[in-house]
């Protein structure tokens, strides 16, 4: 990762978002290589702690991507995840982190282009923000302060 590229992690559910990312590849679409996918069985598995840990570890941005609403393979996992993301978003300012750095998306497995677009847009969005404040130690104390 070059220093000026924001580091982004994308938590994707197996059935929709991860499949959409695969489709982006099959269609040979392009998005910046600083977006890394961690596969979850369902975004319902996403622990709020992962989001905080991601920022603590040094993420500049976090994408959470689940199925379209009503289409969750596990019925309600994406709705649970969305709630958790909203809660963490509301906490981020207290840690000195802009809430825009975290976003929840719904997409279907057929939306390869949408995945690529999300990856590009989040990269641009985070580039437009001022760089993340402080070093790891500082943000760590921030998490502990919660």
């Amino acid at each position, binding site marked *: 990762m070059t220093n000026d590229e924001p580091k982004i992690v994308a938590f994707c559910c197996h059935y929709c978002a991860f499949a959409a990312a695969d489709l982006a*590849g099959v269609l040979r679409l392009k998005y910046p*290589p600083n977006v890394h996918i961690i596969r979850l069985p369902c975004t319902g598995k996403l622990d709020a702690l992962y989001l905080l840990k991601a920022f603590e570890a040094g993420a500049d941005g976090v994408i959470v991507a689940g199925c379209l609403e009503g289409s969750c393979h596990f019925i309600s996992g994406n709705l649970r995840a969305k709630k*958790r993301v909203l809660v963490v978003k509301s906490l981020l300012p207290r840690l000195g982190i802009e809430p825009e750095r975290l976003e929840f998306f719904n997409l279907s497995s057929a939306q390869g282009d949408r995945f690529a677009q999300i990856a590009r847009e989040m990269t641009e969005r985070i580039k437009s923000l001022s760089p993340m404040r402080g070093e790891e130690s500082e943000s760590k104390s921030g998490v502990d302060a919660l």
Partner: protein
Amino acid sequence: MSEIKHGSVAVVGGGIGGIQAALDLADSGFYVYLIEEGPAIGGRMAQLDKTFPTNDCAMCMLSPKLVEVGRHPNVQIITLASVESLEGRPGNFQMTIRQRPRYVDITRCIACGRCIASCVYQDTKFPSEFEVGLGKRKPVYIPFPQAVPLAAVVDPQTCIFFKSGRCPQNCLKACERGALDFTQTEKLFMLEVGAVIVAPGFDPYDARRVGEYGFGRYANVLTGPQFERLLSASGPTSGKVLRPSDGKAPKKIAFIQCVGSRDLRHQRYCSAVCCMYTTKEAIVAKEHDHQIEPTIFYIDLRAYGKGFENLVKRARAEHGVRYIRSMVSQVTEIPETKNLLIRYRDESGSLQEEEFDLVVLAVGMGPSAKGQELARRLGIELNEHGFAKTSAFNPVMSTREGVFVTGAFTGPKDIPETVVQASAAAAAVEALLAPVRGTRTHAKDYPEELVPDGTPRIGVFVCHCGSNIAGVVDVKSVAEYAKTLPGVVHAENVLYTCSQDNLKHMKEVIREKRLNRVVVASCTPRNLAALFQDTIREAGLNKFLFEMVNIREQCSWVHSDQPEQATEKAKRLVRMGVAKARELKPLSVQSVRVSPAALVLGGGLSGMIAALTLGDSGFETHLVERSAELGSDLESADVQGLKAKLLDAVRVHPKLRVHTNTTVREISGFVGNFSSVLRSPQGEERIQHGVVIVATEAYEHKPSGYLYGEDARVLTQRALEKALTPQASPGLFTVPPAAARCTVQAEPAEDEAHAPRAQGRGEGQLGKTIVMIQCVGRTERRPYCSRICCAEALKNALTLLEQDPDRQIYVLYREMISYGFFEDLYRRARDGGVVFIRYDEQSPPVVCKENDQLLVTVRDAHLRQELVIKPDLVVLSPGVVPDPYNEELSRLLKVPLDSHGFFVEAHIKLRPVDFASHGIFLCGGSHAPGTVPELIAKAQAAAGRAAIVLSRGQLEAGGIIASVDPEKCTACLTCLRECPFGAVFINEQGLAEIEAVKCQGCGICAADCPAKAIQLGQFEDAQELAMLEELFRPEQVALKALTPSPLPRRGEGERGRG
């Protein structure tokens, strides 16, 4: 029984119906040949963008099924194949197959697309079948990105080599795998099968034949299936709605319904799905582009299925879709703008002319031409509409014994009905071939698992995938880098990790280097993880000690313009994979014995069919009915024969135990192992069973108002049906032969007939003038369409006319729901002089009495006039309501009911007869109202699905499931509340525990647990957090900090929290 020889089945047609039938059969002990005419399975559903009424993404639902059937050890997919002939008898058929050459070896092709890129045709030139002509392809192509089998195919019709023999054959040279083979020839071979399921689907009606709408002449006139591709994110316009003529975004779009349907010049019947697919397309188009103004021109709006009405309401109210009840007579193009002029008569009767940017024709479902040819070869008969002929009481049985038919081949229908019929056909096959179950399937033997010692010894295999990965990513440096990572004892590059020779090599390396974890860095785990897991299992490793890193779809293919960054990313991804691998634990899969018996709740038509189907398949079945007798829902005259037959069959069946006057007091347990207490006047009895089928029915609602109950001349359709003499009535909801019954004298023209007539003299006890009122009491509380009432009214009207052609019958309706072949009844009723008067929802008809003369007042929505009719008899269609007992069953079984009291299935499209809770299935009117054949198919399907569980003997539980650490659990009940599958229970210690068999592995409970007491196998917090930390660890720090120190212990830092 000696004739029943082969435990294998041919399923002809690889659409959603064929796929479902194949999976059901293969999962219940039969070997399946899935024979597909085209180069890939998936059928029409693969081409859809969304599906109604939930607007779910079609490919998201279908793709996992494609992969599942493609990988199933007991399914062999045979593409580009057609049936030549079928000899023999049920249980012992010989089927001859002709397979056309693909010119590509699918065992070698990796779908990289190099052959396509190197083809002498630089541009895509030929219309793509998958894109319905809107997109183009080359002579060598991959049918669609999610195709199964995922391999290229050469079309000899367009390939220069085959046309002229003079082609440099660049594709052959470009293929790094030597997969292209132009020497392949047609093959003819024979399959031995015990039964055949025929599922060739339908052909969309050819819009060119409806000349007045200009399809094929006007650039901006499309068909519904084409528009679907425009909406698809992976379609020719990447999901942008654009006009073919100029690529501009259209604003005004007109949808024209019934193109080729309900039309004597074309197809007489109603295509059953178009009203809904158009509504969906209009909504989705609007969602894509808010500027779009959709208008739908329709004759009757047939929103008769579960959730359909709600979608139409939303289309009107939330999306501003304009519905105009009018038949469009002509579409003309304005040459300058290529806009289209539509002339129509509006609801007030005046002629309108309106300009649109785009016109979409809702083409109907025609019989499949290839299906008709197939029928000839198989020796099965077609009906008068060109679809497969079936019996009303066995909707999946063809005219040849042992050959079953399913899906749109039997008549127009939507996806869930197709899936229901597919499962029903599979159930029928299972019953036929029960004696030879399991004789042709394969089970694989694995060596005993090595007990892993604690220290990770990780092997990393970095795939070149030819040049697919290696052409962008410096794979050698990735493998070198992997060697430096903690825990890695072996790393190498492989040209193709998935090739047979490498899989063998991988097993050798695992043994030689005593690997206890394997990481493969190659393509997406969605396709091949199962293959690699199986390979390490063959080498004696637990299959969960495996991690796959996607450096193709999610790296080399999306970053081909930045090779250096792609290489760095690949290293980071491998580092993350290795970090996770270090934390992986073996997971155990336990076998749980299945109680080989079924409990069927509800002894109506559906319950009896389900129980008999299960019994015929060899499973002991308890049929529980809370009233004193079975089949009490079968009231009408034309099903009395069926009722008698079913009662007899149930009584003598050796596998069935009937419990009447019985209710269920308690059900506990889970799939494979339920235990229930049945209560009857004789006392209580506990039974053990592996599955439950809920088969309660729906009943005619008891109307209020309309003088019902006050005047004997006002009755319901069901009561009328009983009063009609049996011998004269046509078969229930089947289409009786047209010829004999159309002798009724034509009545005066409609306008004249609208004039109210004073009859009242009443010859015969039912009288001369009869008014039927549809949609009685359809209010806010009961806002759904009951689906069957219009056909019931039509059938009874025809019977009344047969008895006395001088009768004057009026049908007052809101929408005439004569879907599918019921349209014939509607036409015959009109021809026979029945007067149809449409009323608006807001002004329902009023029934009153004047000097003992019944008076019906109705405002004709078409004439905008109030009419008064003086009938001798008023017949009400009050719709159907679900069994009130459902509420109790819902509580007992913990299965959901919708707001109207109908049960909610696991998935409205692809799991129509399953509940989300495993081992519990549903059918009957309490799932949704349906006609007798529809209910029979659902009951057979539910039995077939249940038989999958029962046929296994053992169920596997475990693997990727959640488990609770009793030390940490505080019994806060969060998991119990949040689990969508009811898998959590409170154990004897008062702590949460997860029923392994019920857990689906979503991890919702693990994430929600405030005490962090729940972990999901393969996705433990320590594993996920290790990946996160590795991702963001600066390179130097990673190496310096980790190499000298011993392996980090499992996520201690994270556990303390909470």
